[in-house]
């Protein structure tokens, strides 16, 4: 019954192995971890595009925010980022919620739950990459840019990729990871358990970071237009790196769940082999 219901669902391990000549496991690189590779590739591609864009145009088009060139190359980039990110979020969240509703309350095998945890780890892994890009990679250019050149706008060439693409991207990824877990890993993240502290910290870290952007720009326009990285109104940015520790709690609680699944499998196999395909507890 579980097999037949699950077979209708997209990307479900319960839908059975593909004819590859060998049995597929949920932890095969090409099964549970594909989201990690594709997600990382997409984030890196976006990062490379934005880096080369700045490398090519920051000094030639990005110095005067009142110029037509700035509007052409940077305000367009800013709106383009928001549109792409908004479209991606709408499509991804829409898919997660729609398919999540379809599979809600449907039984699934232990192998399928393992695959789902691998997918969750993949999304978390991509979030980790996004956090590095926004918390280390771009702040370095932001520091060198603003300690060198006069700022006349909040939408500077280094702010546009960092503040208005990778900052919101981390919110989208962290919240998306929770939406995924909420519908697909009910043993840990079902609504009746309450909101997990792990995701609360991780998501609030990303949201606070976006709010700190407003404080940062307000502070730079009021107190100091120059750059001084250790200035106190930059300090709330650090909270992001600290609160992102919630990611370790996600890893911790899912590892514990994996051990529970293994134990259930052992018990099932010990009693009768037929029960190894039983619905996960």
């Amino acid at each position, binding site marked *: 019954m579980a097999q037949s219901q699950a077979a209708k669902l997209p990307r479900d391990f319960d839908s059975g192995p593909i004819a590859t000549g060998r049995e597929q496991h*949920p*932890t095969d690189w090409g099964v549970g971890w594909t989201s990690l590779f594709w997600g990382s590739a997409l984030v890196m591609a976006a990062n490379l595009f934005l880096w080369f864009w700045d490398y090519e145009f920051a000094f030639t088009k990005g110095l005067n925010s009142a110029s037509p060139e700035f509007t052409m190359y940077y305000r367009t980039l800013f709106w383009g980022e928001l549109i792409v990110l908004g479209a991606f979020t709408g499509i991804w969240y829409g898919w997660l919620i729609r398919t999540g509703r379809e599979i809600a309350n449907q039984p699934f095998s232990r192998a399928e739950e393992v695959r789902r945890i691998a997918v969750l780890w993949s999304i978390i892994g991509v979030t980790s990459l996004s956090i590095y890009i*926004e918390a280390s*990679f771009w*702040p370095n250019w932001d520091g*060198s840019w603003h300690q060198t050149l006069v*700022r006349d706008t909040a939408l500077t060439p280094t702010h546009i990729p960092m503040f208005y693409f990778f900052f919101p991207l981390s919110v989208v990824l962290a919240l998306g990871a929770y939406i995924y877990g909420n519908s697909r890993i009910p043993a840990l993240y079902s609504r009746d358990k309450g909101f997990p502290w792990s995701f609360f910290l991780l998501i609030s870290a990303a949201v606070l970071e976006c709010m700190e952007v407003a404080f940062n720009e307000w502070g730079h326009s009021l107190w100091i237009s120059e750059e001084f990285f250790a200035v106190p109104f930059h300090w709330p940015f650090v909270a992001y790196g*600290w609160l992102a520790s919630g990611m370790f*709690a996600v890893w911790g609680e899912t590892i514990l769940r994996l051990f529970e699944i293994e134990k259930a499998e052992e018990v099932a196999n010990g009693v009768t082999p037929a029960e190894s395909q039983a619905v996960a507890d």
Partner: protein
Amino acid sequence: MAAAPQTVAERQKRLELRALLNKRYKWIDRKWDLVFWITAIFVVAGAADITKQLFAGDWDFWTDWKDPQWWPVITAFATIIIPSALQYIQWAAWRFPTGATYTAVCFFMAAWVGRYFQWHVAESYPMNFVWPISTVCAAIILDWLLMKTKSFILTSLIGGPIWALLVWAFNYIPLAPFLQPAYFMNHVLTVADIQGIVYIRSQTPEYLRLIERGALRSFLGETQYVSLVFGGTMAVLGYWIGQFIGRYLAVWPIRRYLKTV
């Protein structure tokens, strides 16, 4: 003879642990380890670098800023926070005394990627002006201390001051050539000072004047050692901020939920 049963029990325990270590699971394989250790690099590097950059970044960006009194103090404080958090996480999870070293290596790689691509390639600052510090050597000692003492309190009290000393000492080696005196525009300056004048940072406060305030060479250089002692104190404080992060933001939330009323 009385110790024999204990030895048997110990041996039994060791065999049980070894059996657990070598246990074959159906789905838990080395891929999980690989994915965890690799993907965690990024969040750890990001957290360590943003903490250092926004608390002590200016004193690490430039060779001439590595001279003032703030450098040994605020750098030691800022760089020990995330290593301490990871020390707790890795010790709590696996009894691995490797958290500080893991963090320091992640931070080292992130800092060099940032400095090379964003300061050198993008902004044309020479690497010998903007090279980042390394905390790897200090982190190895901090992890060794935890392994030997098995105590976070002792590691903080002994390791904090040692951290401040070693971060300064190991990075003084590459810094020393830039602190040599040079004659420039009728003044005796350091090589680092000349770099700061030649490579213009037009949006950094006090970029036009050379202000001899809070230099490590004040009071015939004794300020340097006073700063290191104070830096050690600050590192102890930073260590416990890191412990808070590890204990209450990373480990405590595991399987805890916010309940609605």
